[in-house]
């Protein structure tokens, strides 16, 4: 197999809280390769959010090795991490996290602004990304003028516009009704089948079943790491 996209080895993450040391992650090792579709599962307090933050380069491990595309993340400065987040990682959040005062188009342009792309190309790429998620007719709407599903589509378009190595989705359907949730999951399925790498963070079995590989976290450790024998492939709306 080729070099993994993500390689973590015996990582741990501790926090100091009110004089006490909290062990959010104790000893986690895993590799994620290009074009995998992974679900990261675990109850709240299991450490999956901490793991997601580390995978997403929002945080760095206290101990252990994390290499992203062969680069040592532990060695990176805050600005290096920002650059990795900008170019390599597309975040999709449960609460969408769009800028409320900016139009859909502006929201999608934002990561391109930070990577220093000229306004002309920026706009073209943002329009294309928005069309790809089926919102070509909503470009100048602000988030509060869009439905939950549409907002999440804008967020996905924003995640995709920089053509990142990984889509990192944290409970992407948590704030959506079932029907819209299924539509969003279909979108992830399509992205994966087009060659993208997708990591889903969720505590819902129904959502996790879409992934090809399921990693379960409990008490800061990997409880199981299995291939999903029966991934969901039909997106019938019940």
């Amino acid at each position, binding site marked *: 197999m080729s070099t993994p996209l993500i390689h973590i080895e015996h990582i741990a993450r501790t926090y100091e809280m009110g004089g006490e040391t909290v062990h959010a992650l104790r000893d986690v090792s895993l590799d994620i390769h290009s074009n995998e579709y992974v679900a990261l599962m675990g109850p709240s307090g299991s450490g999956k959010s901490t793991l997601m933050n580390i995978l*997403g380069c*929002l945080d760095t491990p206290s101990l252990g090795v994390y290499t992203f595309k062969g680069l040592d993340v532990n060695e990176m400065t805050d600005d290096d991490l920002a650059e990795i987040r900008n170019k390599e990682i597309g975040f999709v959040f449960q609460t969408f996290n769009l800028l409320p005062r900016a139009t859909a188009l502006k929201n999608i342009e934002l990561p391109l602004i930070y990577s220093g792309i000229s306004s002309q190309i920026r706009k073209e790429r943002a329009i294309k990304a928005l069309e790809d998620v089926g919102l070509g007719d909503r470009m100048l709407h602000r988030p509060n003028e869009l439905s939950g599903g549409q907002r999440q589509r804008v967020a996905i378009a924003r995640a995709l516009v920089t053509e990142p190595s990984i889509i990192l989705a944290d409970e992407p359907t948590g704030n959506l009704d079932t029907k819209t949730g299924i539509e969003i999951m279909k979108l992830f399925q399509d992205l994966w089948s087009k060659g993208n790498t997708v990591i889903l963070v969720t505590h819902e079995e129904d959502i996790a079943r879409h992934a090809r590989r399921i990693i379960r976290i409990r008490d800061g450790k990997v409880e199981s790491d299995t291939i999903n024998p029966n991934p969901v492939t039909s997106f019938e709306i019940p």
Partner: protein
Amino acid sequence: MNILESIIQALQSIKANTLRTVLTLLSISIGIFAIIGAGTAVSTLEGSFNTQLVAMGQNTFMIKRTPSVNFGNSWRKYRNRKDITYQQAKDFKYQMEGISLVSLHNETDGYTAKRNNFFTDPVVTLIGADENFFVVKNFVIETGRAFGMSEVSSSAPVVIIGNDLVVQLFNGENPIGQFITLKTQQFQVIGTLKSQGSMFGRSLDAQAVIPLTVFSRYHSDEWTSSVEITTKAYSKEQLAEAVDESIGVMRSLRNLKPWEDNTFEVETNESVSSQFASFSNYLQVFGLGSGLISLLAAGVGIMNIMLVSVKERTKEIGIRKAIGAKRKWILFQFIIEAITLCQLGGLIGIFFGVLAGQGLGALINTEAAIPVNWVIFSIVICTLMGLAFGSYPAWKAASLDPIEALRYE
């Protein structure tokens, strides 16, 4: 990154919190208003003043009891000075003969000139002058003639009137040869003065010039105010010499001992403008001082509003960081926002400051100058303020932990 984007962002956040922002901007506006207002006032006064000085003539200087422009508490120094008496002035004129042309005059305000049913309003400045007055003071005769030495020595009841009197008393008639009444005495009009416009809002045409000898008898038995001596050197080269000579003559006439200071003022164009400059410096320093204090208060307000803004937009900062904004982008965004705020307040201040200056100009009837250097200074100050007071909040924003910031609700 994109400055325009940051400015738009700043304007949007101003719009979102209009009242709060406007209150803060107001203090900047007041500070800049004080600076610009004083600047405009000074430029306007200076412009008006210099125009008049040029009109007075290059080679002319005056000897007076007290300085014409006096600012501060130095009036105590001048209060006890003895008047320059008519006798002293006459002796001075006699001794200066051949060195320079000397004119004596005295003046008093508050006269109403009458003719039949016409009378002047506002009141007229009555000038008692000798025969050299018109040449030395650049009072140009428009029609008729000036009075001569014989008319002065014989106390002839003749008058030369300014344009305001011509308009108000004669209503289109030819005034030459006619009579007007000043107080209770009748005067024959022998000439009219060329219109001089106005200075500091006062018409210079509401004047009537009569022989000094008549003035002395007519005004009161005693000289109640000092005679002013105006001296015109025959050429520019002779000015310094004439000034020195006149100081010597005046000191001996006033019996000053060598160690005593002059008990009179010698004012050349230059010395009057330097007196005026010290006055305008006071005004400028006052405007600048009060402006800067107000700006300091405003700066604290700006910092406060920016800190609140950073707090309120913690989530937004988290989002920006998550999608790859480096520290410098966040820093830049908030500093630009602070500068935009300051500039907006500053522009309002500049606008009203210039407006106030124009108002003053209109009031004193001169064209108001826009103090370009002070406007530039204000813009620079506002930029520096944005930098100074926006840096800490911006730094705070840039230093936020992205995870914490994203979690903030």
